[in-house]
């Protein structure tokens, strides 16, 4: 449990004069559920894009799954999974086609893809839906499937960008069951959310305000630190002073 899979040191991204992410330093351990919170415009997306090897930092260092964020971006991409609320699966492919497609992209053998897709379909209760277009599935199922596809190649880390937005309360909880079981298997979860009850389900949380990590601790300690009853209050306390607004 003690292996460190994300390590950043003063990671910074500038766009001209604008510092989107300002000297971000933190570590995440294997199997940890790490909540990456912040107001709109705080710099979460910029930071996440750097961690996924999609955007080159202006300065600072980081290793993701043991790989350097400047020189080994292709290796990083092979060792992480990613899902967002907006894009995750191909709507005009069927359930099984999506599984095969993403399995292929990550270089999993046909034999393994077959085995994995059977267990996955069984687990999610999608037996009668395998030949249906993803577009026809309810959002909740889509998101559960997208998550399972994102960890099909057993990545070290999975990045989840608002995975439960707009999902009904029952499915939202089932989604977190999937997160817990992935974390039990040693997969590190890096998740953003606007639901403050979900912040409580994380082992540790970072709060980003105006490009800077303002607080980082367990939910319990953060509440103590800010003498707050709920994570909602902690968030409000930290984010209300934010100067930047937007996405």
């Amino acid at each position, binding site marked *: 449990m003690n292996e460190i899979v994300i390590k950043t040191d003063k990671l910074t991204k500038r766009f001209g004069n604008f510092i989107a992410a300002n000297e971000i330093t933190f570590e995440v351990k294997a199997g940890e559920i790490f909540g990456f919170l*912040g107001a709109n415009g705080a710099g979460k997306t910029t930071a996440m894009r750097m961690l996924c090897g999609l955007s080159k930092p202006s300065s600072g260092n980081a290793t993701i799954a043991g790989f350097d964020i400047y020189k080994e971006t292709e290796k990083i991409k092979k060792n992480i999974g990613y899902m967002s609320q907006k894009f995750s699966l191909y709507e005009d492919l069927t359930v099984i086609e999506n599984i095969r497609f993403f399995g292929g992209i990550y270089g999993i053998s046909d034999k393994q893809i077959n085995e994995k897709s059977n267990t996955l379909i069984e687990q999610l209760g999608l037996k009668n839906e395998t030949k249906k277009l993803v577009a026809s599935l309810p959002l909740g199922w889509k998101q559960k499937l997208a998550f399972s596809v994102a960890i099909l190649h057993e990545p070290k880390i999975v990045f989840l960008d608002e995975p439960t937005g707009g999902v*009904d309360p*029952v499915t939202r909880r089932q989604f*977190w069951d999937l997160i817990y079981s992935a974390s039990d298997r040693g997969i590190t979860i890096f998740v953003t959310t606007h*639901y403050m009850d979900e912040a409580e389900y994380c082992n540790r949380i970072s709060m980003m305000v105006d490009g800077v990590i303002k607080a980082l601790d367990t939910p319990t300690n953060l509440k103590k630190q800010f003498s707050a009853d709920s994570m*909602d209050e902690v968030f409000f306390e930290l984010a209300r002073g*934010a100067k930047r607004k*937007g996405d």
Partner: protein
Amino acid sequence: MSDVILNNICKTYNKGIVLAVDDVSFSVGKGELFGLIGPDGAGKTSIFRILTTLLLADSGSASVNGYDVVNDYKKIRQHVGYMPGKFSLYQDLTVEENLKFFATVFNTTIEANYELIKEIYIQIEPFKKRRAGKLSGGMKQKLALCCALIHRPTVLFLDEPTTGVDTVSRKEFWDMLKRLKQEGITILVSTPYMDEATLCERIALMQDGKIMSIDTPKNITKQYAEILYAIKASNMSHLLSDLRLNKLIRSCNAFGEYHHITFNDDLKNSKSELLNYLKSKNYISIEIKQVAPTIEDCFIKLMNK
């Protein structure tokens, strides 16, 4: 008197295969702040589009301001304001040009109704020469609200105005709505965030095209029949699975810091039996307390019916 009335509205898509709105009836009083609460796919947007005369229902009738949505659609369009869930202003016009455009379309001017939008507009005014497409999410949302208000509508339709917005901006947005309500504008708003339900005067809880419950938030939570407990202990994820397997427990759901549970039998010994069981399983720092049900508790219960 009601500003918005729906009678047995049904709407299907894909030649009847997808039932989006399933026999929905409700009404919204003049000046009321009414919320449609439900996840994606509940039918909220279809209802908004039917009421704003952009979509025809398969069956049923509806009226806004006393005008029929089919026969008097032109009248309705003159009087209502609509903020769709998807940003729908002109991306290549500036902030000011968008606002001017919508004012002109409704035969009015920015000046004529400036008082109504002033508090919101001053927050984006420093960027009035910026193209709408270049605005941040929060500013787009404020501009869209200004454009929906510029003709001083009688009824304001807001389709998921706070989706994807952080808690601080969400609070600010609801404060704005309260002020608009004081201006006498009837507001129909939808949201997937259950915690926002309590900010409405009345709500309809929706799932799969149906209304599961409709009342004031207070009355809905009052209807929750069982005694609800919040429980926490040393290992929350194991506690969840152990509670689910325990025969004393009727329902168990994760609720942030605590799990919410109800017992099959509300007699006192259920609680102490459970505590003994958990202690035998080596849980420590066990805390259990009775709590008032939230809208989300009610929603989950209605979904599992």
